[in-house]
């Protein structure tokens, strides 16, 4: 009799433990599910609301950009034309300073040839002494590459005539 009472008490305690555990697990699962589902629904609501807001914002900004189309056109044109001018300037070999240099050289050329395609210049100078041609070559060598004397000719009555060929600037 006593044994039966003890056995029943043990069973009741076991069921009570299972009940408590099941209830606790169920509560945790329910809470987790409610949080997850709530988050999911909330996220979807946020996505919808955000999409509407962002689209409205975009439309407003697009309208503002369209309202400034003339400014944009001017800016784009200006940027392009400025780039074109820069390219032109950078691709130009200024010959004014070269002419100034030769005009200030010990012997002023009596003839001058320049060809941008060949990147070569030729000057002809008249001198009374051949040393003057040497001096001219030295002066030109200070500024240009590949300087060479093509010819030095003595002409009765004219003196020495020197032809000097040189390349690009150093």
């Amino acid at each position, binding site marked *: 009799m006593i044994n039966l009472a003890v056995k029943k008490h043990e069973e009741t305690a076991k069921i009570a433990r299972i009940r408590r555990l099941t*209830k606790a697990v169920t509560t945790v699962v329910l809470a987790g599910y409610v949080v997850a589902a709530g988050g999911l629904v909330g996220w979807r609501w946020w996505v919808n609301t955000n999409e509407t807001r962002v689209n409205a914002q*975009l439309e407003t900004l697009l309208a503002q950009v369209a309202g400034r189309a003339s400014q944009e056109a001017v800016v*784009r044109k200006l940027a*392009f*034309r400025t780039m074109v001018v820069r390219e032109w300037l950078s691709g130009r070999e200024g*010959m004014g300073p070269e*002419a100034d240099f030769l005009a200030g050289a010990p012997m002023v050329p009596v003839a001058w040839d320049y060809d941008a395609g060949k990147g070569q210049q030729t000057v002809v100078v008249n001198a009374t002494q051949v040393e003057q041609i040497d001096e001219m070559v030295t002066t030109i060598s200070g500024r240009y590459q590949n300087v060479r004397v093509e010819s030095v000719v003595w002409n009765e009555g004219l003196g020495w005539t020197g032809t000097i060929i040189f390349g690009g600037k150093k």
Partner: protein
Amino acid sequence: MRGGIREWLWILYPVAVAAFVVVSANFLLSNQDRWMLAIRSGQETAQIGGKIARIREKLAVLETVDMELESEDLKFMATAVSPAKAIWVLVAQVKSAAAEVGAGVVTYRSGRVGDVKEASGAAQTVEGETAMALSTRVSVDDFGVLGELIGNLERRLPLVKITKISFGNGEAMIEVEGAWAPGGTQAGAEADSPLPEFAQSVIDVRQSLDGYISGVMASEATESGETTGSPF
């Protein structure tokens, strides 16, 4: 017996929760297309956010644009490098530069239209060639005058490039190339496409061209490429 059933009533709680989870999850996830749409929409919204940031940046720049000033700059750039070929502008420049240093232009010749000695419709524009070149024969007394002429020519707008010089016996044959470049209208740009950098470039170019002479004829080459009048 009744006491036994009561003891097991607690099972209804997990069963009810399980039923609730299954039914509500089924309801939530039943329309998968709408969830996919929401995911895509979220991604698109993020992209639109980036687009909005770019447009805002662009608007901030556009709001600072002084139309009067930039139009003036644009006109200046179009004067420096003409948007259309106008050989007579080049001819006028050479003549003007030569006259200023006391040199005389003997002849000038363009690559396509032949000798250009008198005013003619053919002399006004040259089409279909890449470079706008002009070969001119100038009478110059000495090398100093030639140097002045070249310097004078190179400090004029529209810009010119001297490609050949042949000087001797009181004459110089000078080949010049006039600056021209078509285009500049970039139509159809996206609303969020960023604006090109221009402010500093304009300042740099203006500084580079400070002191350049804008010829009377050159100023008549308008930004749209139209030319007016004749130098002859």
